[in-house]
């Protein structure tokens, strides 16, 4: 372990900046397209491309199951994947707090390298700024990515149709729960790992199963509940879930029980909502069950033409109730 820290000079554009790029970024991101010039010049073929950007400010920046580096790749990769776009190139922009540990930065960048390699996406340009102590919380990363769209395949939040089945690609709420336990000093311990994962290969395997998929959406901030309300509004449909079918890790359930929270509103970073015609649902589920990150996938409900714009829930007593609308900050409920 070196004790080397990031200083303001590392962001000043001079010798130290070059040293940072050389020793950390180039070392991990080396590929033919990684540019020392002002912009990367890329060959993206002739078809349509998808493009997305996302900022990451997670605190703590290291958590069980990943760190902000892995997260920053997964976030943009998954956004592209939801459109059926194969992620090709990414850029990343770092804002570092003065005094941040070089070794920690190295670890974050190494996680980015590993995750990007797994997907086959290339990091082609980057930027680093150093902000004075206290001006940012250790490390912020913004990633932007482009991907090439799969021909004959298109998804949108507006494409859900009555009769479609709703799947989740994994158990819900693990990332949010992991961060909550790490961030808030609640004294609760649980062996819960963030679901943070790059899902391009998952989406690819679904497309290979059938191109007849209407919606794929990454259930990040706000969780599955929020995403379902978005889709209900965008597609002008109703949604009915079966509460018993929603996969939740028992420990996440335990934590939520202690704090009065609903796992449907906790963030995921490697779980998507997939909506497809009912006839395709079982085949998609079978495919997902064989995936590396999606063994806990499940069919959780269906699209209806009743209660447009709402998410209904069939409860454990067999009655119907509305899923509460997503609200602001998640606060533990005790008393």
């Amino acid at each position, binding site marked *: 372990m070196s004790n080397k820290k990031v200083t303001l000079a590392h962001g000043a554009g001079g010798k130290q900046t070059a040293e940072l790029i050389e020793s950390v970024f180039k070392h991990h991101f080396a590929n033919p397209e990684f540019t020392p010039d002002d912009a990367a010049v890329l060959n993206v073929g002739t078809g349509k491309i998808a493009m997305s950007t996302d900022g990451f400010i997670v605190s703590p920046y290291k958590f069980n199951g990943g760190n902000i580096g892995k997260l920053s790749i997964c976030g943009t990769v998954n956004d592209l994947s939801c459109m059926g776009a194969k992620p090709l190139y990414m850029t990343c922009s770092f804002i570092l707090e003065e005094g941040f540990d070089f070794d920690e930065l190295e670890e974050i960048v190494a996680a980015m390298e590993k995750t990007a390699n797994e997907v086959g996406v290339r990091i082609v340009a980057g930027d680093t700024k150093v902000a004075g102590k206290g001006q940012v919380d250790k490390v912020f990363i913004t990633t932007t990515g482009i991907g090439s769209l799969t021909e004959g395949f298109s998804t949108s939040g507006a494409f859900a149709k009555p009769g479609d089945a709703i799947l989740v690609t994994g158990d819900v709420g693990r990332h949010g729960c992991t961060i909550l336990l790490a961030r808030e000093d*609640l*004294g*609760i*311990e*649980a*062996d*819960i790992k963030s679901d943070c994962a790059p899902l391009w290969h998952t989406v690819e395997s679904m497309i290979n199963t059938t191109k007849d998929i209407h919606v794929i959406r990454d259930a990040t901030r706000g969780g599955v509940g929020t995403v379902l309300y978005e889709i209900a509004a965008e597609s002008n449909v109703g949604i009915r879930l079966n509460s018993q079918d929603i996969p939740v*890790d*028992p*420990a996440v*359930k*335990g*934590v939520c*029980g*202690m*704090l*009065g929270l609903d796992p449907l509103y906790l963030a995921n970073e490697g779980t998507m909502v997939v909506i497809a015609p009912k006839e395709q649902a079982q085949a998609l589920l079978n495919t997902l069950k064989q995936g590396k990150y999606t063994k806990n996938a499940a069919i959780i409900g269906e699209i209806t033409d009743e209660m447009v714009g709402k998410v209904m829930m069939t409860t454990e007593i067999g009655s119907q109730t509305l899923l509460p609308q997503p609200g602001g900050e998640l606060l533990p*409920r*005790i*008393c």
Partner: protein
Amino acid sequence: MCVGLAAKVVGLKDGMALVDASGAKREVSAELLEDVEPGDYVMVHAGIAIAKITSDDEEETDGLLGLLG
């Protein structure tokens, strides 16, 4: 008013109990219960064990419905 959680006592030390609710563990005060032992189920609220749980809800409600005849 009072979110309660049924949890299993898995450890005891100096009036504190380590409780486990399907994998979520927390230390809570066991000072207000007598004769708590590891393996017991307790009702936890706001960081203290407020009661021992003597059966599951199936057995309990079954008994109550039996009384209704």
